Every structure is written in C-alpha cells, then in structure tokens.
C-alpha cells in the first residue's frame, strides 16, 4: 500500500491530482463549518462586492458571500458526483461482467444493445431521465448514473474478458460454483483496479454533467448553493460583477482537473510496466 502511494505521488499528475482531490474532499466534508459567513444570508447593502476585505471572493446579486456559497456547495456537488459515478459504475459493472461471463450469443446481444444505447449522447440521456422523473438533485444523480452505465459496462466487459481466461475462474467453474458466485466472488474483485482508474476520471465528467444539468435548470433548484446553478444565475448579472460568474466556474474546472490528474496518476501507478 505504501509502495503504491509512493508510486502514485512520484508522478506529477498523481501528486497534483491527489493534492487537489484531498483539498476538494476536505472542502466537501467541512465546507459548511469553514464558511466565514452564512451562505444564504442576504445583505442588501453588500451586493456585487468585488473580492477583498470582509468578502474574500466578493458577494453575489443578493449580497451573499461567494466563498461561503462555494464552500457549502462543495458538499452537494462533490458528493453527488461521487455517488452518481459509483452507482453508474456498479450498474455498468454488473452488466459488463455478466455479459463477459455469459459469453457467446448472450454477450453479443447484450453488447450490441449497450452500443445502441450509447448512440444517445450522455447529456441527452441525462436530460431525458430528468424530464421523466422531474427536475431535482436526487433525480439528476440517477440520470447521470444511468448515462454512465453503458460506457462502464463496455469497459468492465473488456477487463472481465481477460480475467475470465485466468485459471482461478476455470477452477471455480470446475468446482461447480454457481454463476452468481463466480461473477461476484471470483471475477469482480480482479477487475476493480482498472475500473477505479476509469471511475476517477468519470467523477470529473460527473461534476461537469451535474453542473450542466443545473445550468439548464434540470438539476439543483434555487436557492441551493450548487456550483452549476451559481454560474447559471450569475449570467444575468455579469455586467454588474463578473466575479459571481468566474469563481464557481474556476472551482468546477479545478475539481474536474483534479480528478482527471488523479485518474492518470492512478493509471501509471497501477501499471506494472512503468
């Protein structure tokens, strides 16, 4: 484990990515307490303040402290992205490993169907699911998970196919174990490493997808301190103060870059050849 960590932190991607992700997770866990002001407190006399003084990042159209809103919004934005990626991965992994295990015609049929579903752009898929369930944060979570499912199914299948050829799987088949046992106990644990890499990179997509859904009015609803929603609301007031718009954009980008870098770092660290 320590050896793995050393390898991860040895690459610049792994180092910077880990730092940023730890910072973001820290903000998600403690942001609500760290916030210097009440994120929902309006102040009629302190609207459109530029960064500096009492308000480190300035204030928005209602005089709310932007830093506090970003910190308290970290929890919902990051938690949602993590949960959606996890759920989408689980669903996809079940389909992908199952398909690889069944093999033959079933595998062919399942994969062609997964390919068919992938012909719908993931953003459009998420939009359809949200419009089906109604615009809310929880439904957006489900929508992103469903949008991620086919891609993750493909990747787990590819990994599972190589695992299936291993001797310990043949041994389990020879022992006469049931299908469910073989998929869950023998195959899944061994396909996890490459999937973790893919998941990490997907978290950054999830952050962006959530933000986009909120931006289009189909994710978090006002007055929630959601990063995507903050950008969306700020557009009307960008002539009064561009900072309302710039800060949440920067935070979205930093979070996405962090998970991207960490994913690349993990890939290098888990790859025995490098």
């Amino acid at each position, binding site marked *: 484990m320590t050896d793995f960590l050393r390898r991860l932190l040895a690459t610049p991607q792994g180092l910077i990515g880990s730092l940023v992700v730890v910072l973001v997770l820290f903000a998600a866990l403690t942001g609500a307490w760290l916030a210097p002001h009440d994120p929902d407190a309006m102040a009629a006399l302190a609207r459109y303040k530029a960064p500096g003084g009492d308000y480190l990042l300035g204030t928005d159209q209602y005089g709310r402290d932007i830093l506090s809103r970003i910190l308290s919004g970290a929890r919902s934005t990051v938690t949602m992205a993590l949960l959606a990626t996890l759920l989408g991965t689980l669903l996809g992994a079940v389909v992908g490993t199952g398909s690889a295990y069944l093999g033959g015609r079933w595998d062919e049929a399942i994969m062609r169907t997964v390919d*068919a579903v992938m*012909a719908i752009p993931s953003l459009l898929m998420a939009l359809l699911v949200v*419009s089906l369930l109604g615009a809310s944060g929880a439904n957006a979570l489900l929508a992103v998970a469903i949008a991620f499912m086919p891609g993750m199914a493909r990747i787990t299948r590819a990994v599972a196919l190589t695992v299936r050829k291993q001797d310990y799987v043949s041994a389990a088949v020879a022992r006469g174990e049931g299908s469910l046992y073989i998929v869950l106990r023998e195959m899944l644990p061994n396909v996890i490493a490459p999937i973790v890499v893919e998941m990490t990179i997907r978290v950054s997509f999830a952050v*962006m997808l959530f*933000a986009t859904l909120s931006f289009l009015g189909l994710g978090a609803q006002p007055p929630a301190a959601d990063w995507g929603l903050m950008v969306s609301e700020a557009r009307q007031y960008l002539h009064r103060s561009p900072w309302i718009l710039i800060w949440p*954009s920067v935070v979205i980008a930093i979070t996405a*870059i962090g998970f991207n870098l960490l994913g690349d770092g993990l890939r290098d660290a888990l790859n025995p050849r490098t």
Partner: protein
Amino acid sequence: MSASYILKRIALIFYTLFIVSLLVFGITQVLPADAAVMMLGENATTEALEALRNSMGLNDPIWMQYLRWIGGVVQGDFGTSLRTGQPVGPALFSALGTSLTLAVFSLTFMLALALPMGVVAAIRRGKATDLFVSFLSYIGVALPEFVTATLAVLFIADWWGILPPAGYVPLSQNPVEGLRHLVLPVVVVSIIMIAHVSRMVRSELVDVLHTDYIRAAHLKGLSRGRILLRHGLRNALLPAITIVALDVGYLLGGVIVVEEIFSIPGIGRALMAAIQARDLPVIQAGVLIMAATYSIVNFAADLIYAWLDKRIQYD
C-alpha cells in the same frame, strides 16, 4: 472488407435505431404529459378530451401506439408537434441542417488544431512544448461548455465587442455575418474535443515511434521528416479516425448546450424546448435523429478505416 461485413454493419445501424426507438418511446410514454390536454387546454371538457384521445389512438394498447408511430417514421412521417401543430419532420430536419453546419465547422477546427498539437507534443516528448500542450489539454477537458460559452460571451462579445454574443445567420443568406456568428459557438464546442483528441494523437504517435519498424527506418538512414510522415503519422492517425467518430456523440451533446446559450435554431435547441414543453412527438423524433446521425458517422468511420488500412480483414 467484404460485402457481408458492410451488410452486417448496416443491420447493426437498424438494430441500434430499433433499440433507441423502443427506449425513447418507453420514456415518453411514462412522461407525465397528456397530449389531449396539451392540445385542447386545461379547460376542455372530459367528453372532448376523451373524443380526442380516441381519435388520436391514445387509448389503444401501447404496442399498437408504438407500431403506429414507428410505421409513420419509416415512411418519413414523424407526427405533429403538440406545441406548434406543425409536422415534426420538416422542422427538425431543417434544424438538423443548422446543427450539422455547426458540427462540421467544429470538427474541422478541432482537427486543424488537435492534430498538429498532438504531433508536436509527441515529437518533443518530455520537453517544454509537450508539457505546455498537456497543460492546455488538462484545462480544456475540465471546462464544461456552458462555462466556456459564458466566459467567451463575457470577454469577447461584451467587453471587447469583437463578435456577436448570440444569434444565427444562415451562411447562404449572408456568409460574412454567418461566419461571424459561428466563431464563438464553434470554438466553445471544440475545446473539449481538441483537448481529448490531441492527447490521443500524442499517445498513439509516442507508441508508434517506439516500434521496431521506426527503429529500422532510422537505421536504414531515412530522414526524420520522411520517417515521421511515411511511417509514423500514417499508423498513428488511423486510430484517431475511430476516436473522432466516437467523439461525435460528445459533440452532439455539446451542441445542445451551445445552441441553447447562443440561441442557434438547431436540433439541440429544438429538443431542449420540446423537453421543457413535454412535446412528445418532437422529443421522440429528435432523439431518434441524433442517434441515427451518430450511428451513420461511426459507420462511415469504420468504412474509411477499413479502406485506409488494408491489413484489417473484417468478417
């Protein structure tokens, strides 16, 4: 590339569209929207609503409604919009034309930047240029379209006033104004793809440059430029075709956001409006058309790939 491969590939497109049609029909069936109420308004009498539902076939079993819908689609009839009362097909296909203009310009712009960036980064691997390109691509991949679009409008359109902040002028009507209106949307929709494709090209080329045949070419005494062009690029760019085709799915998603922000009357904006108004026939047709576009582009990419790389034998 055999005829049976092509036939199989075409059959796959139809299977894809069949699955997508089932999916989108299923979703729109569950959507809490009543077409009869939408057409007659909230104050319509129960009898009038029931009569309309009967005449529209909304009381028939679901499979019959599906067959009626898909039967119409096969004949080019996508139904009537609940919101405008106009036939869905012609409106959506003209919107698709606008979106494709945006998409083709974006793909061209993306390739014009991403290919040289990837190649230069691979040649100067580990040097400052390479790091700079990686740095740019990390940032590019992490910026959602709505953020870049909003920032572009803020800085370039509002503060400097160089380009129009929104709107669309058909190229056939006024080429100069049309292009001016396309610049920001094209750049915004391309950024993520530039970042992605340049990274893929770089890693493909780095792999190719480490192969034995490149070493052999060096030993043979060929010039570096010749090796790069004749042996390196040729083998590194082939996989890029497949990647670009898969990115078209991403492009179609990005187009939805960009059309919404820049008020471009394309298929993405039509779909957003339809989703908000629960205009079921437009949602169904729009999703189907998008999936068809994606499938056809990927089919074309596979054909080009097989045609360029004679070693590949599909069965």
